């Protein structure tokens, strides 16, 4: 589904991603971990098409197509969803109006009929249940005045509506209380299928207890320095990142 080859990315001449290689197949869940500032969000944003970042070399294929050539809205319509680490507020536009416009843009792209207000409402109410959100959130402006945890849940709610093929969740578990974490995990698991893939950016094992990853990667200073199975996350939780850094350094020297 997704093939990243030697991806290098810079912001204002500062190199942030220094050669990323990653392959994600349909049906897989990949967790990306790594210390603050290592480039996890940068990778997520570049995959979603943020123009602030300059891709200096490398390529990304998404379902065989050159992802880097596609504008962000086309990537979204082709099934890429990014749950933002810091969801954006859009005052004046209700959550439901916004999501209906988004869903219909995607449906139109797929050649499906657009949903009218009633059909959308029915769907939205059903999906709200997955994330256990109150219907009043539909009428509130997008993310405005939402608590940190509510914003994260709202991202998962949007994902549930838009049903992406490739979901990239950037620290969606941060700032959630224990119950909310379970709810969010449940929402993510609902999307899991043999046709979809998920990339989870996280700092904590606790999410991975509920959403069990097939692969875990450690991103450090713009490179994936170690990959493994779900045990790797447990090991990181226990030992931190220093041992991997040391391991890498000994290999290099």
């Amino acid at each position, binding site marked *: 589904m997704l093939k990243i080859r030697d991806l290098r990315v810079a912001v204002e001449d500062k190199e942030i991603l220094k050669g990323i290689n990653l392959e994600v197949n349909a049906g897989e869940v990949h967790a990306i971990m790594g210390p603050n500032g290592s480039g996890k969000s940068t990778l997520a944003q570049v995959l*979603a098409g943020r*123009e602030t970042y300059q891709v200096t070399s490398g390529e990304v294929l998404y379902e065989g197509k050159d992802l880097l050539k596609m504008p962000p809205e086309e990537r979204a319509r082709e099934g890429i969803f*990014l749950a933002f680490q810091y969801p954006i*507020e859009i005052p*004046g536009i209700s959550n439901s109006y916004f999501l209906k416009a*988004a869903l219909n*843009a995607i449906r139109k792209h797929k050649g499906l009929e657009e949903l009218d207000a009633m059909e959308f409402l029915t769907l939205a109410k059903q999906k709200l249940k997955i994330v256990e959100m109150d219907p009043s959130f539909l009428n509130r402006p997008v993310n405005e005045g939402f608590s940190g945890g509510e914003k994260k849940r709202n991202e998962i709610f949007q994902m549930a509506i838009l049903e992406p093929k490739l979901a990239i969740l950037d620290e969606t578990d941060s700032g959630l209380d224990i119950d909310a974490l379970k709810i969010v995990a449940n929402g993510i698991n609902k999307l899991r299928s043999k046709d979809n893939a998920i990339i989870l950016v996280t700092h904590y094992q606790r999410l991975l207890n509920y959403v069990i990853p097939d692969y875990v990667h450690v991103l450090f200073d713009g490179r994936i320095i170690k990959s493994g199975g779900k045990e790797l996350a447990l090991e990181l939780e226990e030992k931190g990142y220093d041992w991997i850094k040391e391991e890498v350094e000994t290999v290099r020297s």
Partner: protein
Amino acid sequence: MSNETSTLETLTSQEYKYGFVTEIEEETVPKGLNEDIIRLISSKKKEPDFLLEWRLKAYRHWLTMKEPKWANVHYPPIDYQDIIYYAAPKRKPKWNSLEEVDPELLRTFERLGIPLEEQKRLSGVAVDAVFDSVSVATTYKEKLAELGIIFCSFSEAVQNYPDLVQRYLGSVVPYTDNFFAALNSAVFSDGSFCYIPKGVRCPMELSTYFRINASETGQFERTLIIAEEGAYVSYLEGCTAPMRDENQLHAAVVELIAHKNAEIKYSTVQNWYPGDKDGKGGIYNFVTKRGLCLGDNSKISWTQVETGSAITWKYPSVILKGDNSVGEFYSVALTNNYQQADTGTKMIHIGKNTRSTVISKGISAGHGNNTYRGLIKITKSASGARNYSQCDSLLIGDKCGAHTFPYIEVRNNSARLEHEATTSKIGEDQLFYCNQRGLSTEDAVNLIVNGYCKEVFHHLPMEFAVEAQKLLAVSLEGSVG
């Protein structure tokens, strides 16, 4: 970053969609302004003496006045001798049905998306179409006449109802009021006249579509609306103008009079040609609009959506004279490219327990400059007066500007005033978030802008709200990079 800025630039610099010139033969008077020209206009229109006298007084007063320079707008000096002050379609039209109307004119309306036929049949809107300076199509007149409602061109009113005209003309905006009002009073060519008798609710929205057509013809419209005791009327004004190079002066005067328990709702969707991407051409729109809540419990609301003009200078105002009278102002003003707008309102509280509400939404894009200037004046007699003002500015891109000048004068300390102001910016973050959910940048901007303007659109009649939304979209649209 520069990449994103340029996306915003192309996005907000779409060409004017309604720019085209209709070929209808015009009869004009020579360029320039003097007493003879005024006499000529007046005689061409076969006006009664009182009106000629009034025009001449206005002209003489205008000669003593200076063009106002205090607005936050900039333009080259206007040569008032280089303007043609009167133009009328050559064949004096007196149509009984649409079939008799010049097909070219009908096509113009169709290209503007306002087929008269459709409007007549579907929406029940009576249309008094002011084409250049003389009305050529009026509909639904008989139906309105049955109720005693007069809705006609100003010239017709001068001929048929001279007493009403004489009584009310200049009673809200005297010719001494300001430079442009004086000029208008001297040379106004036509406009609309509307009279709702006592106790009558006008059963349909009255609508006028203005359109500047003859090249270099200044437009000096005059509108007078009178609602007698207990009457109600909702009046719609909409305009589009053809693309051209010369700057065009438009100095209209609108006067509203609401007697006891009467209500007048005046809605405008304004789309004069704003000038090209570099600010060349475009309409200068200097308008004096004022309503007088003369009787107790009367109400006047102005709702306007402005997307056009190179320069807009406009402050629809309400004088709240009657006790318990209500004044409202809801406005969306968009400036794009090099457009400049200096708009706002004045609410003059004179009667007891008078209330006013001001909701102003300014949108600036490109190099647009948007200024809100509002005056809330509470006179000594206005005990218990209340005002709520909210002035919001939305910036799209970082080359545009927004300015707010709220003036408050309170002479009665029982008054209660509330003022809120916000400035927000459509950020790249928001656009990217929308993009990531599948929305194009264009749709995202429209979505955000519409959300921002909702409070004002809400006060427009349904069809107009839809039109306003489209206009904003067109004005902001562009080839996304």
